[in-house]
């Protein structure tokens, strides 16, 4: 078991938790290995924590938990049971927080490979506001 520090808490993870991004994230090619960790107090939001840097973190969430009808079409390489996360940009006022629905992170649960795919469907935006109601 290795550990990673997030917000003052040590989190344990095993080798099988590690996601490999062959091409990194878009514009961030250095991010090749990461883990997704959830903390009770922040659910349904999770952390995407790159393993090769100690300081960079992303907040991610399964977009279907927030947008019930989010059903994008992925490229054919993505299997049906692929795990989907959307990257969230946190603002100091949570109402200003945005979510990137246009370029979700897809994780293949079988081999733990991940990729960030830009959807061709233009109705999904890269800085969508969260529902306020």
């Amino acid at each position, binding site marked *: 078991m290795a550990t990673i520090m*997030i917000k003052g808490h040590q989190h344990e993870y095993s080798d099988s938790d590690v996601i490999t991004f062959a091409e990194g994230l878009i514009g961030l090619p250095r991010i090749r290995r990461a883990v997704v960790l959830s903390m009770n107090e922040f659910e*349904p939001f999770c952390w995407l924590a790159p393993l090769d840097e100690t300081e960079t973190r992303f907040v991610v969430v399964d977009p279907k938990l927030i947008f019930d009808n989010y059903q994008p079409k992925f490229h054919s390489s993505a299997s049906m049971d692929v795990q989907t996360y959307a990257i969230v940009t946190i603002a100091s006022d949570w109402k200003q927080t945005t979510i990137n629905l246009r370029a979700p992170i897809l994780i293949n649960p079988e081999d733990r490979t991940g990729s960030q795919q830009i959807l061709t469907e233009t109705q999904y935006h*890269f800085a969508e506001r969260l529902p306020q109601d």
Partner: protein
Amino acid sequence: MLVLSRRPGQKIVIGNEITIEVVSVSGEGVRLGISAPDTVSVHRFEVFEEIQAANKLAEINEAAIDATSLKDLSEHFKDRQK
């Protein structure tokens, strides 16, 4: 950068599977037809740049995480879930 001259109807090939055809040229505009496998994503570069910028904006430093804001957010969406 490789620079090639092509006329309408002519193509270039990238690797073994990607072809780009100049469909038509009118004034300042060029229409391109791209054939690529499903696994290759093709986008206007502007879209790619937007996503790049969005990713960089979303990247947060461990030390700068605003836990209060994230907790507010979490509380709001926990209620919505069931």
